């Protein structure tokens, strides 16, 4: 029987694969979005920056920044879910830039204004078919139980080879 892979080998492969989804995207770097991983669970993190402000009087995060943050969390979660099986079966996952799901539509619900603090988001793939996927995202700041925005998005899946 094959011995289980050492944990650091598994972690290193998962982190490298996740990073390959994010590194190549200039807009993710521009907004400063990072991802925290616990097993297969991802949390998107948007560290606060003055340039993200939309209303300087309140001040509040720009609604467009919140939308972009949630859309990014959804796309990365969906891409991550797509490659998880291949990655876990130990096979070498191709780390070259890959085709990303395309957003068909995106609906965002602003529940309260975004404070000048770090923001967090988690996405859940509610349906993932061969062609279409539906993803829901929740975002919060200081309290996990108090969402400041939620969104639902539909995506067109990239064509699979073979």
């Amino acid at each position: 029987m094959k011995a289980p892979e050492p944990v650091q080998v598994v972690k290193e492969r998962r982190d490298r694969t996740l990073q390959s989804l994010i590194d190549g995207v200039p807009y993710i770097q521009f907004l400063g979005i990072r991802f925290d991983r616990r097993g297969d669970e991802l949390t998107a993190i948007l560290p606060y920056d003055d340039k993200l402000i939309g209303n300087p009087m309140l001040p509040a995060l720009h609604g467009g920044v919140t939308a972009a943050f949630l859309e990014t969390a959804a796309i990365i979660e969906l891409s991550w879910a797509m490659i998880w099986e291949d990655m876990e079966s130990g096979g070498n996952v191709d780390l070259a830039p890959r085709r990303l799901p395309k957003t068909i539509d995106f609906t965002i619900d602003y529940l309260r204004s975004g404070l000048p603090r770090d923001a967090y988001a988690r996405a859940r793939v509610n349906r993932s078919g061969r062609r279409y996927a539906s993803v829901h995202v929740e975002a919060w700041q200081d309290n996990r139980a108090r969402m400041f925005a939620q969104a639902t998005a539909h995506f067109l899946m990239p064509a699979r080879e073979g």
Partner: protein
Amino acid sequence: MPTDEDDAQAQRRITIARRFIEAIPHAQVMGMTLTEIGDGEAEIAMPYDARFVGDPETGVIHGGAVSTLMDTCGGAAVMSHPAAPHGTATMDLRIDYMRAATPGQRITARAVCYHVTRSVAFVRATATDEDTDNPVATATGAFTVEGGPS
């Protein structure tokens, strides 16, 4: 018939709306310029910028950057409406992405605030690149109306 006073009020409203939009830090960072504003309508342009790319394989701008443009433009349309809200915030926004914006081209959003109640402003918006006959995205949204007309 519009009186001189109505005209002066409209001018004042448009000046306030223009200042409101031009004071948004994130809109400045993204290089947005207000190209038209008046009576519940606004047009804002955003230049192509390599920092806004969402798909490195194709150089296509990220949907989030288009959302930010649409949201900003929607807010500008609300602020310029004759019902003259003293401020506004987005309640919800739905964006439909019809096609990828052509890399290298500026994106222009046009928004119309087509109905305002005491509490809510309703907005439609369209984004195009240089091929203005084929929209890149459309949006509909509801915005809050802060502090009614005095």
